[in-house]
């Protein structure tokens, strides 16, 4: 499974979005705020914790976290970069 799909699955199970098909979440769709998936700050915290657990990365907090949590694509990009950095790749 590609990283974006994996993150979508994580969003649905960790935030208990019952009945939501993960594949219907757009890669670039906003996760928070108006016209979004309708998540809030408590969801962001839960998601950050699950990303750390699943991918072994350290998710930034506060203002730094804002761009990372913009969309599934942004989250995937962050995870990829953080894993690469941890592996000493880039």
């Amino acid at each position, binding site marked *: 499974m590609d990283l974006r799909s994996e993150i979508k699955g994580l969003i649905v199970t960790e935030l208990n979005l019952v*009945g939501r098909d993960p594949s219907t979440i757009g890669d670039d769709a906003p996760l928070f705020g108006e016209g979004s998936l309708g998540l*809030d*700050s*408590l*969801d962001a915290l839960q998601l950050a914790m699950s990303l750390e657990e699943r991918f072994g990365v350290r998710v930034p*907090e506060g203002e730094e976290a804002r761009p990372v949590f913009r969309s599934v694509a942004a989250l995937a990009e962050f995870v990829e970069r953080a894993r690469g950095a941890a592996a000493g790749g880039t």
Partner: protein
Amino acid sequence: MTARVVVTGVGLQTALGADVPSTWARLVRGERALGPVTLFDTEGFRARIGGEVRTPLAEGHKDDPSWSRTTAMAMAAAREAIEGAGLTRRPEAMRVGLVVGGTVGGMFETEDLLARFHSEPGAREVLARMLSHPLTATSDRLERDLGPFVRVRTLSSACSGGANALVVGATWLVLGLVDAVIAGASDALCRLTWSGFNALGAMDPEPCRPFDMRRRGLSLGEGAGFVVLERDQGARARGAAAIVELAGWAIGSEAHHVTNPEASGAVPARLFGEALARARLRPADVDYVNAHGTGTPLNDAMETRALATALGAELKRVPVSSTKGQLGHTLGAAGAIEAIVGALAIRDGVVPPTGGLETPDPACALRHVIGAGEACDVGVVVSNSFGFGGMDAVLVLTAPGRADAPRATKERRVVVTGVARASAELPGTRMLSAVESELDPARARRLDRPSRIATALSVRALGTASPLAPSGRAGIVLGSAFGSVDGSCAFMHRLFEKGPRLVSPADFPNLVPSGPVGHASIYLERRGPALAVADLGASGESAIAQGLELIQSGDADQIVAGAFEEASDIVDRVLIALFAAAHPSSAVRTEGAGVLVLEDEETARVAGTTVLARLESVTVGRGDRPSVRPPRNPSRARIVAAYADAAVANVVAGTPWEPVTRIGVGTTAGDHEALGAIAACVAVELLSKGDEVDEALVLCADPPRGYALLLTRP
């Protein structure tokens, strides 16, 4: 029905001092007690500092496994309040009650057991002590050492629990149920709340700075605050001086979000106005506001908006401060501790500062008290307390006689307009998942299993009740003996196993005893009083009594009241370890829940709602037989109890209720601590369906907890 309620004794144990004089002197000087926490390892947490109590704690009873830091601090504070009120030896005829608020109970001590349970799951001595610290443990210990009490209530509403304990005590006095009440709250630091607030990103790594530009969150603390409340005539008659009057109060819920406050502060502002109105005062009369002021960015900005709405043009004049920069946030104890701080401000004519506040945030434009306390005339204090789930309480304290005498309220009769119950009948089985599936999955996504059961049954019961709008008069009170045992264990195991960064922030608010009540109030959009109560096997009876009192005192028009108990692998294992040898079949518990909708009779009449039964009285025979009026016609009366056993027979032996047919619900409704609530549901069904029964007495089979609910055909 009216009474002036006065405070005749106060007691504190906090991180600043072991009693009232030491805490108060240091608080006024602006001293801060926030330092490195030594009770447990804080390595890897966002914050490593807190308000830990370092003065010696009251010594425990060696043979009492229920003893805890929470109980020790409660004992010290309650003793100081009782001594101050001159009630160490009380007149024999004096009817004294006890109300204890709190959130964590003996969780700090349970965590040590959980850590061992984690490594040796079968250790019998660990299992044997695992359930020693329910919320009720503190009130039971206080009752043994400081009692007898005619009425005891243990309650939780997260961080407003301490304020609510005083409100419940005051309503008992107004309703004439007691002559004096020892009321207060206690909460010790523990790893569960530490890691929960850490996971929520709510803790400031530095000592917290309420209302400051640089504030980043709260600092946790621990402590206890207790008061003695009396009617002013009673206090005067025995020559006791009133320190202050508890002249007004209002409690309600935001019905917004389980952890985040609703940003406009509309509900706290409404409650502020209602509390002042009850005291017959106006914003122009307010001399000082003791803010909730946690130091989190969201709370302090919201509270400022609420105060701006409530105080209007007076906002610029009224000094506001928070004690949390000095004591830390003592969670369930905070509301009681802060009420005492308000009382001392009136007594001594000085308002304490906000510790840690240097540069006020423009979003918190208040008349701050910075550095040290300020001397000024203080006649009227308002104290705010807000809790998880949006459970808010506002208290108004005044100099004795400062407020006009409270308005007399007329007596209100309470009827039942809705009923719902569900249970698993066979040991080891779970309740029908159909109950949970009645909820809207999107709106219920944050609810854990106990919350789903409680909420779904409330929805069912409300189907026949009066629709209430605005919902500020509609509340909910639910009892549970043990709360989320398995959830708390799983949460702590994750902490032990994976460390602080991988603790689940979404699970944390479900684990406080008021979690299910908070979730239900949000789902059901009920903005009236919301409380969790606990009284072991009488938790349902306690909740129904609490609901009745809130309607009788005029604090609500409608209350969903009942109890839920979740089957728990851990509780089963504990019971098997403790009792299996003696009673192999009785060791496995099932689960169940029952709720009633209680309403003011007039509200039901105006709405044209069908009345199912009348809740004529709730009597409490703490340690004694409850005294209930005789049945009008024994052949058309029934006694309903968890089990129609010898204990129940004994309670009615030699009374006019002795010949009445006894019904036990325990065989068909499983075996769990919510059976009292289910018995009440069965009683309502007997009265509303068929025409053989006119009166039903719901009896608690546990005489030390001794409730008797008398329900009659409408």
